[in-house]
């Protein structure tokens, strides 16, 4: 998606930059014609150096403009969710570190009881929702080990988790 956007943006900028340069070129030619009274296009070599440089649709210039525009466009794009979440992790995870820690302790204590009924399942799932992804993975592994080793006695009526 972003690649397509970038390519599209590049093509758009290429067109815009080309259009700007062509417009400038046309304006310069027009001004030259009006000030010197010469009809038709005057060779750019007869223009002042600064004008000639800005008027010529040089490929390197065009590339530089496109690079500049792409860079500024890339700097403007951090509006997608991923970048926003990186910039402000608190917006994604509103649970305080203390609450996360308590959730881990509570979930581990449920595992350690060795009893696994519907009530334990329900509370365990609630605690999982308060944890960081890393803690969630680790506690889940502890639960799986308990299940595999048989240290947890299952009495749920449906899914175990």
């Amino acid at each position, binding site marked *: 998606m972003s690649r397509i956007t970038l390519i599209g943006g590049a093509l758009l900028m290429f067109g815009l930059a080309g259009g700007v340069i062509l417009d400038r070129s046309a304006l310069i030619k027009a001004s030259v014609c009006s000030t010197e009274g010469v009809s038709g296009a005057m060779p750019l070599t007869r223009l002042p150096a600064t004008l000639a440089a800005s008027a010529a649709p040089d490929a390197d210039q065009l590339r530089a403009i496109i690079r500049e525009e792409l860079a500024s466009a890339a700097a403007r794009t951090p509006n997608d969710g991923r970048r926003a979440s990186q910039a402000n992790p608190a917006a994604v995870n509103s649970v305080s570190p203390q609450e996360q820690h308590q959730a881990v302790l509570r979930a581990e204590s449920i595992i350690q009881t060795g009893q696994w009924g519907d009530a334990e399942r329900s509370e365990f799932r609630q605690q*999982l929702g308060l944890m960081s992804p890393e803690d969630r993975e680790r506690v889940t592994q502890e639960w799986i080990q308990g299940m595999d080793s048989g240290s947890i006695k299952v009495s749920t009526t449906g899914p175990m988790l």
Partner: protein
Amino acid sequence: MKKLMAVAVLSAGLLLESQAFAGLSSTLTVQVGSNYAAGALRSARASADTVEFIGCTLSPYQSSNYVYCQATNSAGQSYYCINSSAPDVWAATLASMNSASYLYFYGDASHHCTGIYIEPYSFNM
């Protein structure tokens, strides 16, 4: 005469109803292996025993999809697996499940889900 009419209407109704549910119908039971499980939701629910089931739980926790799938066959054997950071496409797949879905999921020996797929066919309904 009225009784005869009533019987005729009732018979016609029953015939139409049976025709409405005609077509291929699956009676596959839930299959459980050492690292996979599969089964149709409807046939699992309609099974004669009281233990057979199959399904998945999707919990879109903060910044990750937590997926838990479990199936139990008529013999009471279960397989379950978990993926605590399932890709979004899994969430979309699970969200599209319905009563016509045949669900298949698999994982590794440590119960880490590595794949799921569903087949919503008419014969599963």
